């Protein structure tokens, strides 16, 4: 917590001019102190004093080239051509690194079969987009002859959708070849709209659509930070806040080169946070953080869990996301309270899992979970307990691992290869009726204990919920003991484990760390650590509310600047 204060103190070091090359040298220097001094010195011009709440002038880490995730691809198509467009095709798996798809997206590429799918989807989207009446949504000009080419109309519609799909103002090289190719197709097929289809397809398979390629301004004077180009910054903002590409208003700011003006930038960020689309952004962040993409592959044993269905799984996921968005966006609530709140949402499908009557026949209704029941906060939701479990039973280890890694940002070492499984209690031993009995060896044997002491004791706190997330008090006829301790804080059951998490300073710090990773597509660099400390303090000072956190990230100097990636092709003097 003191890091940010120290960073502020260091900012008073007099500025010394340094070039980008020096910066790179400093970053690779073994002496972090020297590196940190160098970086703070460079950013002195950005700083406006060290009063309460100013982000430390830290240089952002390397830029990223991120492949659009499936949800981002879908959002782009719906934004530009309308939500009616059906996207048929299979996306390459997004992967997960450092806990997030957002980080993996800066790592994955496109394989031959993945590209084949993108190309097929592009043609299918294009075909629908130019069909009646959907074309009227976005094609504003009328071709002079629908059976012939019309370069003017082609160019006009390209200028309309191009910037939205490529997330930047168009250049001449984007326009002329496409208009010419569309003209040839229209002439050959005697169909103006065949040419339009070609334009749409060509945008949807372009690398600068499928990848968010971040670029740096190359005209910064020596000693100044390397700023992201306006278009790259706009994409960072809109994907952070909306999980979608920049809208027309934001692109207009880019075209007018206004985002380098701190006031205009702050105005834009506030506009975006106030937009209804902010909900989708928050939803995407937590869907990623909670690893809810795993719902797509979830299966449960139908004999042990006859209540399970794809609809139950989908509703359980949605229940949690609704609860998060309602609490953090609608109510503007404290993030920590998510671990204790009994307010949530139900459908008729979920009712039996929660053993609750649901009055609303279709759709969702807000409910207050009974105070007498075992469920409070997100950890009592069926979603986590269903996801972090085996097909036929619960798993305290998987649940504990999730809590450690995703909610507390602690790393748990992988299992050693040479474990003597002869030590392990056979799970069909009739004397071992509860998970706690069966996992005893984890706690008593040194090889196991080293890692399992991190996962099992807290995971056992959720044993009140079975592999589907239904409440229970006994397993195989033996009563379940859900008590334990979270790093010294004793808890009695799942609800009080939630309270322990709500009290832990690690929980909000972990959200800050993950939100920053999510924003920039990589883990924070060492240079950025002071910024994280600062963001933690801001988050705390502003009641652990999500919108101010996003705002603080978006307006921090590190978010707007970057050091070039290694082997940078960009020429700088």
């Amino acid at each position: 917590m003191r890091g940010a204060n120290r960073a502020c103190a260091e900012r008073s070091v007099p500025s010394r001019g340094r070039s980008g090359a020096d910066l790179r040298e400093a970053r690779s220097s073994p002496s972090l102190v020297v590196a940190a001094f160098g970086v703070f010195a460079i950013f002195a011009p950005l700083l406006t004093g060290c009063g309460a709440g100013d982000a430390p002038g830290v240089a952002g880490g390397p830029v990223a080239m991120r492949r659009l995730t499936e949800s981002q691809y879908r959002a782009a198509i719906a934004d530009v051509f309308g939500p009616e467009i059906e996207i048929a095709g299979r996306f390459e798996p997004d992967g997960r690194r450092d806990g997030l798809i957002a980080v993996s997206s800066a790592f994955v590429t496109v394989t031959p079969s993945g590209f084949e799918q993108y190309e097929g989807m592009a043609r299918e989207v294009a075909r629908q987009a130019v069909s009646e009446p959907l074309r009227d949504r976005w094609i504003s000009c009328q071709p002079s002859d629908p059976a012939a080419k019309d370069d003017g109309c082609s160019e006009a519609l390209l200028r309309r959708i191009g910037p939205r799909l490529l997330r930047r103002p168009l250049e001449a090289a984007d326009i002329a070849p496409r208009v010419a190719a569309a003209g040839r197709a229209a002439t050959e097929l005697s169909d103006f709209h065949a040419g339009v289809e070609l334009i749409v397809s060509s945008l949807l398979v372009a690398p600068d659509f499928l990848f968010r390629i971040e670029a740096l301004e190359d005209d910064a004077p020596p000693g100044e930070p390397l700023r992201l180009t306006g278009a790259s910054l706009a994409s960072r903002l809109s994907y952070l806040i909306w999980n979608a590409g920049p809208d027309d208003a934001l692109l207009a700011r880019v075209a007018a080169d206004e985002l380098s003006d701190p006031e205009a930038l702050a105005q834009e960020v506030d506009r975006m946070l106030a937009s209804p689309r902010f909900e989708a952004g928050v939803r995407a962040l937590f869907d990623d953080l909670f690893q809810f993409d795993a719902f797509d592959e979830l299966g449960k044993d139908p004999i042990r869990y006859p209540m399970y269905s794809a609809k139950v799984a989908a509703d359980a996921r949605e229940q949690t996301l609704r609860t998060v968005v309602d609490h953090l966006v609608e109510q503007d609530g404290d993030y920590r309270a998510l671990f204790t709140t009994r307010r949530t949402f139900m459908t008729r499908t979920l009712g039996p899992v929660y053993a609750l009557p649901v009055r609303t026949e279709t759709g969702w209704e807000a409910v207050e979970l009974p105070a007498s029941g075992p469920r409070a906060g997100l950890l009592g939701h069926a979603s986590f307990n269903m996801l972090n479990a085996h097909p036929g039973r619960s798993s305290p280890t998987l649940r504990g691992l999730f809590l450690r890694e995703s909610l507390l940002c602690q790393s748990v070492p992988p299992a050693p290869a040479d474990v003597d499984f002869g030590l392990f209690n056979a799970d069909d031993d009739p004397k071992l009726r509860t998970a706690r009995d069966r996992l005893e060896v984890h706690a008593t044997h040194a090889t196991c204990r080293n890692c399992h002491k991190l996962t099992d004791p807290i995971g056992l706190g959720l044993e009140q919920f079975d592999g589907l997330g239904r409440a229970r008090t006994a397993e195989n006829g033996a009563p379940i003991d859900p008590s334990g301790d979270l790093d010294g804080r004793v808890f009695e059951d799942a609800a009080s484990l939630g309270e322990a998490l709500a009290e832990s300073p690690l929980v909000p710090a972990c959200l800050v760390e993950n939100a920053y990773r999510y924003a920039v597509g990589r883990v924070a660099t060492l240079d950025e650590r002071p910024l994280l400390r600062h963001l933690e303090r801001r988050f705390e000072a502003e009641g652990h509310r999500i919108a101010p956190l996003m705002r603080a990230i978006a307006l921090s100097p590190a978010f707007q600047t970057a050091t070039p990636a290694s082997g940078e092709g960009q020429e700088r003097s």
Partner: protein
Amino acid sequence: MTHRITRRRLLERSLRGVVAGAGLSVGLPYLEIFLNANGDALAATGAPLPRRFGTWFYGCGMNPHRWNPSEEGAGFALTPELMPIEKVRPHVSVLSGFSVLLAGETNHVHRTGVIGTLTGGAPTTTTENDGPTVDVLISDAIGGTTRFRSLEMAAHGLPKDSFSRRSESAINPAEPTALSLYLRVFGPGFTDPNAGEFTPDPRVLLRKSVLSLVAEDRARVEKQLGQADRARLDEYFTALRQLERQLELQLSAPPPLEACRVPEQPGEIPISQDVDHVVRNHEAMARVLALALACDQTRVFNVVFSAGASGLHTAGSPDTHHTLTHEEAKDPALGYQPKATQFVMRSMEAWASFVEILASVREGDGTLLDQTVVLCHSETSDANSHSVSGLPIMLAGTAGGRIRNGIHVRGAGETTARVGLTLQQVMGLPVAKWGFKANETSRPISEILV
């Protein structure tokens, strides 16, 4: 409607120049046109029958003392866990005792064994040394003339569980169902080589021009990128070029292929980890794949029957194959874990039926399998201890008479990179040594070479 007809007719006219000389109809009597006098090459082109390579993976290994044969050579007796391959025994060689040599590297459980066998060495971290896998090396050499460079499929329905990769950031995703595999190969874009009449799809040229537009813009996109991202963009453009080549192939009539016929569209099979579903999905996939090979749509394939750390289970059981290998007690009388071993037997049965399906398609004077070699492997031997020593490995098919089937070779703890090296050489790659660090080798397994 009239509008669309006009459009199609016009495009066909404009295409006529492109396909002139490719032969719009086949006039010869049907069967005589396929093969040369020796029956080992296509009469139409004089090209030899296509040679193919595939991998077939299943998770969680076996019980070494019940799987490894005692005798070497052709007369070996089938062991209890190899009994399921009895029906295809003449087509299969067993390689026991080959290992991923750790030489100080960590055994990343359920990963080192499979990545080690496929890349020729123990991965040093959880992400590095992750590619290219041997199938990618082979498809680089032989995959360029077919519609698909390679086809990946996962019978357990999880596209992520694919091991085929050029690098860790370019993992070839697997088709999760027999139906999706069918639609990918035999859906729109498929040209039946025996259709007699060939009419190029008029939309293909449009698709090509879209790809050209993007390809021509490459330098501009690339100029901002650092090295790592440039390599990723290279992957993208490699993929784009492959599609361009696929489209070019679709503009000319393919040579007729005797063994090729279009399979029936598979029905919906539930995707789950229930071993009964996986077996059904696998068999339906194998049938589609066999005809995809017979129609020369690809020459390289990768089948995943179950994942490493296999999640397969039987309906009603709280356990999976993987959890059983660690948690089930050994039956003192039997000397192994009976429930976990059932999954080994199901996996061996599935492998045998896979081989049987490839061997059931007649091609030339023999079968499809004769022109193919398939590597069957797993990520562990004894899954209970995560052992990567003495991995279960089998080869099926002779790759056009180059590999000896029906024998058992004992590897005595030598590197599995010898298997990968042998396979590359059999597939015609000019490779003298392969593998890295402790696993590097220049010794193919001569016992199985003809």
